[in-house]
């Protein structure tokens, strides 16, 4: 099984075939890091296709699930090797807002692109984001989601509370009513219009793109 084929399995979401394919590639001498990088690249393609409307939510979900099954095979081999991680990202939907679908999709896409994700869930008070940064190691990014026009002030409060406590921390925001202008106005470092482009944006603001 070539690495190119693994890439296709991820892109097309063949979750039942991926584990065997990854194992086969390893047996044939491919490096775990190499396989992981290819799968991350595949998810980049998946994210782009989602953003342009070529594929849809269930197809993006199954691609991510496929990748995570492939990663499970690689984990024992790569254990202790943290060089493959882009760092930890704290994510949550802001206070007063119970929407989780969009947030879950972003968690999935950021995870698939190499971040360690800490999901705080929904209705997350501003201070909780700050606490989570302090409780976890190697946090490089905080992502805040807000889906209601009426919780946009909570999004602002979250960003400003994080920035006041941790001036160097990068913060990315998104959600249906959020615009790039609003993101800038409240002091966020970046805005992504959908889950597909969230990983690209996150890497861009961290200078990893």
């Amino acid at each position, binding site marked *: 099984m070539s690495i190119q084929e693994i890439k296709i399995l991820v892109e097309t979401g063949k979750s039942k075939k991926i584990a065997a394919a990854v194992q086969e590639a390893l047996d044939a001498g491919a490096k775990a890091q190499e396989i992981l990088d290819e799968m991350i690249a595949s998810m980049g393609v998946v994210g782009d296709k989602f953003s342009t409307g070529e594929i*849809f*939510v*269930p197809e993006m*979900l199954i691609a991510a699930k496929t990748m995570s099954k492939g990663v499970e095979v690689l984990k024992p081999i790569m254990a202790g090797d943290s060089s493959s991680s882009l760092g930890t990202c704290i994510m949550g939907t802001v206070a*007063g807002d*119970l929407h*989780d*679908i969009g947030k*879950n*999709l972003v968690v999935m896409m950021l995870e698939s692109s190499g971040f360690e994700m800490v999901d705080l*869930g*929904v*209705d997350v008070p501003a201070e909780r984001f700050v606490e989570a940064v302090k409780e976890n190691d190697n946090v490089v990014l905080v992502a805040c989601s807000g889906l*209601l*026009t*009426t*919780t*946009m*002030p909570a999004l602002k409060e979250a960003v400003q509370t994080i920035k006041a406590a941790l001036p160097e921390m990068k913060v990315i925001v998104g959600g*249906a*009513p959020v615009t790039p202008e609003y993101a800038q106005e409240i002091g966020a470092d970046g805005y992504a219009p959908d889950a597909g482009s969230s990983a690209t944006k996150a890497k861009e603001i961290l200078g990893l793109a």
Partner: protein
Amino acid sequence: MIIIGEKINGTIPVVKEAIEKRDAAFIADRAIKQTEAGASFIDVCASTAPEYEIETLKWLMEVVQDATDTPLCIDSPNPRVIEAVFKYASKPGMLNSISEEGDKCEVLLPLMEGNSWEVVGLTCDNNGIPNDLETKMAITKSMVEKAAKFGVTPDRIHIDPCVMALSTENNSLLNFAAEIRAIKALYPTIHVTGAISNISFGLPVRSLLNKTCMAFAIQAGMDSAVMDPMNRDLMGTIYATYALLGKDRHCRKYSKAFRSGQIGPAGK
């Protein structure tokens, strides 16, 4: 079918613009068209920044009430905003909404004592929308029991079991139907409502999924919906489903809706 017309909501860009410009004619037109299309209630939701929400909602209520006699459905995620504008309603309508989140029940249910106001009850709590039937039923029971303390009977409550997106939950329709059946079994006179279009989030040709979901939901016992009454296809599906389920004797309503031009090809 009880239809809660959803077209006056500040999250819709053209409505947002009309609100900002205080374009009363635009809002009134939407109220009249929804009434003509068969709306039982006209939902009004400001979706502005919190500091302007009360004055905006009051304005929307005045414009809609000047334009039609259809009762209002006062919609805000903040119960205190609903409480503040409640007195501007010229007659009983619907409050949208209570849930077990925060103190929504405690703020809104007292407003419904001794009148005929109705209310939407969402099956969510401080932890969000539960995934399982048991928790949704527990929330429903708790809301109904709290309502009873203010003399609000189940027939004045529209439970919204919060249908999930099919794209992320493969059994979302099956779960929704099971929830509708369980709620109706426990409280036969209660209404079950929902914003059906959630089901098609993240998938192409959403209208196909919305219409088919509507038919299954009606069969399960849903008798109220938060929807666009000007959507002829969806309205047609409702009439067709009632007829197919034997709930429209001699298909009279279906035939009448066709003759009046409410369903079928547009422009008739």
